[in-house]
């Protein structure tokens, strides 16, 4: 069986002595959307951080395009084509929108203006507000800046930790549309979502984590159809 594009394979680890992840596996294929859902404290965000190298693992492996990257630090993973949007503190609030994007492209030495234009085409409101400090924007617009910053490295995998946390339902739908659009350009998307139902609807693959282990795995549609998943996690 060939490896998925990015896989966190049987990951075990945690912050202190106790493990938060107990051998869970998360993977995403090229150009697809994988969504991690689950109850509070299930280790969803921890799993994301582990895949990005922000948490040391006691067991398991992270592989990108078949290459073992378990020991790389986050900065080196950025250079390998991974990008991460944290749940909070994900923008440079005192800097303008344009400068946020420039900082996203910090490692690039080539001309990144086409990428900035691409981000502005994806999120047109940011073009109008490009000279405004990012910290003065609305919650939804800040999330757009955060995603835009991550896209500036031209990543192969985009990892989003609860991108719709704290935004209105309309803005959430809009953000999900943009995420689908990003995936269509061939970028793999791995995200943690609190709004499980909406997220699974756009997901190619869904993971239900409970206490750091895979409880259910399947395509988004399968999970939505599974009576047990519906009853326990989607509220009927």
């Amino acid at each position, binding site marked *: 069986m060939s490896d998925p594009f990015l896989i966190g394979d049987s990951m075990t680890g945690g912050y202190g002595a106790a493990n938060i992840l107990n051998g869970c596996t998360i993977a995403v294929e090229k150009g697809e959307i994988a969504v991690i859902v689950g109850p509070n404290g299930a280790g969803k965000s921890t799993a994301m951080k582990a895949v990005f190298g922000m948490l040391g693992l006691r067991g398991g492996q992270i592989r990108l395009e078949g290459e073992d990257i378990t020991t790389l630090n986050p*900065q080196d993973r950025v250079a390998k084509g991974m990008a991460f949007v944290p749940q909070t503190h994900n923008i*440079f*609030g005192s800097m303008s929108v344009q400068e946020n994007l420039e900082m996203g492209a*910090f490692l690039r030495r080539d001309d990144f203006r086409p990428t900035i234009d691409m981000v502005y085409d994806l999120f047109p409101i940011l073009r109008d507000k490009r000279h405004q400090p990012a910290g003065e924007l609305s919650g939804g617009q800040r999330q757009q800046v955060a995603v835009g910053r991550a896209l500036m490295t031209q990543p192969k995998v985009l990892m989003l930790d609860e991108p719709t946390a704290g935004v209105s339902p309309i803005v959430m739908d809009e953000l999900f549309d943009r995420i689908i659009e990003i995936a269509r350009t061939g970028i793999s998307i791995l995200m943690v979502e609190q709004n499980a139902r909406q997220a699974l609807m756009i997901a190619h693959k869904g993971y239900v984590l409970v206490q750091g282990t895979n409880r259910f795995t399947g395509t988004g549609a399968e999970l939505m159809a599974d009576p047990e998943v519906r009853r326990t996690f989607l509220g009927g």
Partner: protein
Amino acid sequence: MDLLNALVAFANFVFVPAVAYGAQLALGALGVTLIYGILRFSNFAHGDTMAFGAMCTILVTWGLQSWGISAGPLPTALLALPVGIAVTALFLMATDRAVYRFYRKTRAAPVILTMASLGVMFVMNGIVRFIIGVEDINFADGARFLIGAREFREATGLDEGLAIRSTQAITVVVAAVAMALLFWFLNRTRTGKSMRAFADNEDLALLSGINPGRVVMVTWLIVAALATTAGVLYGLDKSFKAFTYFQLLLPIFASAVVGGLGSPIGAVAGGFVIAFSEVGVTYAWKKVAGYVMPENLQPDGLAQLLSTDYKIAVSFAILVLVLLFRPTGLFRGKSV
């Protein structure tokens, strides 16, 4: 005519000295605010860094003078300034390597770094006194006045004279150039923007691939340039004395806090606020009042709110008031 005389007296005794002093404080406060914003601690050693930089520059100035090199009407110290900055930069980077880097690695609380800087302050203080002594040193040479009081009186026919010392003019010009360069660097260049990003959100800066070691190094480099320039300008305008520079720490911190710690534009504004308050409160206004007020309303005394001995108290009072009522300062810096 009386009003003009009053204006000239005001300019001569309050405005010109306060602008020069404000420019020196602003340069000092910029260094403090950069360290606070980027390295995240209050650097108590800043006054003595200024003394160290001024000392290096004075030593080089003496060397140049002994070789007969001078800058004509300008002070020789301006020629020596780049060398002073370079030596201070090396010294600061060595200090960072020996002291601060350890605490940064262990992610120590800012107050620990501040206490470490207190130790650095004592060491620097000792080094400066050991090398150059504790005496008052006057190292300004070149032309003494841009405009002399007598020339001014003869040219305008006024009773009051306006004197602008060349060191005051140089202070303002050099400070303006230094600030313009700094703001250009922070807002327009890739490295400058990465420093602002690092100050804004360290974790995200790391995720974006910004190299923290480089940011720290460039910060010390800029701080060395600012502190040395401020120290040399202050020494040219007044005189060099190690103890005075140590005392400058208070007005400099007051300036940075008044403007908002971490905000460069605030540091500049704060420098002038403190300078004008200090000079304004300790100036004897009798002369100005004599020109503008009718005879029977003129003050009997000197109309001086505080003796000049208490000028430090002015910055201290402002510092306390700002921390009580607007801890983020004029330009919404970080609160302490």
